[in-house]
């Protein structure tokens, strides 16, 4: 019977700890099932977004028409001169902030402070919803004001609109699902559903949320800056 070797200083760390974990019986990782599953799902999801981004880079190379100038298209004017990327900067700021509130919610969850956990998750979901709302605004501006469609646009390569709507749409779908998921978790936190089961679920939801944020950083860099 080889349980994971536990030394006087607790479980071994680093490479040795990894070998211990993998050669143990019962379980390979000292995490709840749901968390292991979420990690695996996120790696799988990483492959999806990677394929999308590789596809984006590829069609940007193959298309013969010039690529539109993003700093003009994504500019927004508040009465005066248009400011490049201002909307997207605010959106990114909102989403990163939501990661902060999510991290705090995880912390308060483990402290079993139900009220604070509930409100912090709600705040996270609110920021997420705000992000999606601003994305709707951005899309409608691109579609109705600038005339950008998935199949073509007046600024250059048709693939610009195709890949932009597809990838940001797919990400927006992730954020929307995340908001619904967070609301569900928040509701159950308030009801005290996790008092017996433990509050790992808040961290699992948090893992998903941070992942969606991280993906946004890459989309931001690839679509708006590159």
């Amino acid at each position, binding site marked *: 019977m080889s349980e994971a070797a536990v030394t006087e200083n607790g479980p071994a760390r680093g490479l040795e700890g990894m070998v211990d974990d993998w050669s143990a*019986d*019962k*379980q390979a990782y000292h995490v709840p099932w749901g968390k292991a*599953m979420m990690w695996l799902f996120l790696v799988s999801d990483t492959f999806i977004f990677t394929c999308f981004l590789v596809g984006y880079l590829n069609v940007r190379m*193959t298309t013969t028409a010039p690529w539109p100038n993003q700093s003009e298209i994504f500019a927004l004017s508040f009465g005066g001169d248009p400011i490049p990327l201002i909307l997207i900067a605010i959106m990114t700021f909102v989403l990163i902030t939501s990661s902060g509130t999510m991290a705090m919610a995880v912390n308060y969850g483990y402290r079993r402070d139900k009220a604070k956990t509930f409100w912090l998750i709600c705040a996270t979901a609110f920021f997420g919803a705000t992000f999606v709302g601003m994305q709707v605004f951005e899309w409608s501006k691109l579609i109705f004001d600038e005339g950008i469609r998935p199949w073509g646009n007046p600024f250059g390569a048709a*693939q610009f609109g195709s890949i932009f709507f597809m990838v940001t749409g797919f990400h927006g779908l992730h954020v929307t699902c995340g908001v619904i998921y967070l609301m569900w978790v928040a509701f159950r936190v308030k009801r005290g559903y996790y008092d017996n089961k433990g509050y790992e679920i808040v961290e699992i939801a948090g893992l998903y949320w941070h992942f969606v944020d991280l993906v946004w950083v890459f989309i931001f860099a690839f679509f708006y800056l590159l």
Partner: protein
Amino acid sequence: MAYVPLADQDKEMEMHHPHNWVEEYVFSQDHKVIAIQYGSIAVFTGIVGLTLSVLFRLQLGFPESVDFIDPNFYYQAVTMHGMIMVVYFLTALFLGGFGNYMIPLMCGARDMVFPFMNMLSVWTFLISVIILMASFFVGGGPTGAGWTLYPPQTAMEGTPGHDMGIVLMLISLAVFIIATTMGGLNYAVTVLQYRCRGLTMMRLPLTVWGIFVATVLALFAFPALLVAAIMMLFDTLLGTSFFMPAVIEAGQPLDHNGGSPLLFQHLFWFFGHPEVYIVALPAFGLVSDVLSTHARKNIFGYRMMVWAIVAIGGLSFIVWAHHMYVSGMHPYFGFFFATTTLIIAVPTAMKVYNWVLTLWEGDIRLNAPMYFAIGFIFTFIHGGLTGLFLGNVVIDLPLSDTYFVIAHFHMVMGVSPILVLFAAIYHWYPLMSGRMFNEKIAKLHFWLTFLGAYAIYLPMHYLGFLGVPRRYYVLGETDFIPMSAQDLNAAITIAAIFVAVAQLLFFWNIIWSLKHGKKAEKNPWGSASLEWQTPDLPPKHGNWGEDLPTVYRWAYDYSVPGAHEDFIPQNTPESVEPTVDTEHFDPDHDQSKADI
């Protein structure tokens, strides 16, 4: 971070107790029922795929005599046959069927970690099959673009099913991927996190290893297909140009410009090559267990077998472009991918040697599962060797898109996994049904299938060398193909019909034995692995009765010197049968030898 201590993981398990017939057999959360449901749906689609293959073989063998097959239908049949067999039949049957049935039993678990999600997985899979089958009934019929769905031809007017057929195919694939992801997350986490006491990863049967690594491959490879499907759906429905270059059709330029057909091929094969191993690795695992049990010998080189599975899984992600040597990609890519392709032959050959060495001097019991398992070694060596031809760029160029390719991949990922499926179904039939099958009919089934498969595919190698191209509706007159090639085609068709009809023996045997088969005694093959040690046969919901088992040894203690029987079940304590120290085992100085 303050984790709640996880004293006994089993407490996390929330068993669903069915209240009525529907919850027990239809919307069941029991992994065994789900496995049978998955398997049945997969076998049903497989029968559709088999029927299609007989139809297009009729056209190829007797082009003059079958008026009801026009070129469009021929292409649709070929396309649907390929996609059904690879994705909806083999993948679903190995992962959804055998993965579901074997993983919890072999891991000593009560069920999958999330039974509800497991149930969702099988129903999502059913929806994807319904969408796929619906494409037969829409206007224009199913897509006829070839199972690889290469653009731009998928969207061209001349391709059958270019409007609704392809859309339904892509949606069905996307739904299938959702189903596989839900199932796959369950399988992988169950193997990692829900093994019983004493069951370390290196004591798992190779079946679990094969299915586990294949599941991980599925989780990382299917995303590429999902992305390709979404992009192609956009191309078809929204008029985008991801995969569509500027095309002139019938003198008119299409509304597309600047896309990259090669991108689709890369995405497709980044999924497509691991897919080969998603099918092959579970087959490797299952056949290892069948061989070891019926040879009454431990599997030769267990650790090497495990690492070979892991190595093949890893390498399978960096060989995809060997399907694209003639696509016009950069020639240096061909050099890289030929090298990695040939490297993958090393762990694969190791596995073949180990199977043969497992048989060496074994106390072989030649029953039906063993017939199929040994038959698999033949067909797999055969298909593997032709793979070496096609892996080399210079040899592949003339052979590409000929019947040689068809012969190769049908031997290696058609016939071989299917022989393993038969071996596995016969081997575990007593466990699943509690009855024995008819041994004589099963052996007859083996000889007809095995010899028939050779009668179909051996001549195809020759046709390939002649240069007969694949996917041609009819073989016209050419300078380089002799007329006798058509006679060979007719012979292949006759063999194909023969083999297809012979499968009725299998279905009859399986169904008849459910009711009339001899009642199986407990552990009828004398197997050491855990799935046969359940208190009930077939195992009940929850598998293990009151207490979860404890494992004291690996799954391959056969013919251990000094043991009471010629096998020691995994859950036999050391106090009853001492564990053999395999690393310092010296048969010449074995004290217990006197007992034998």
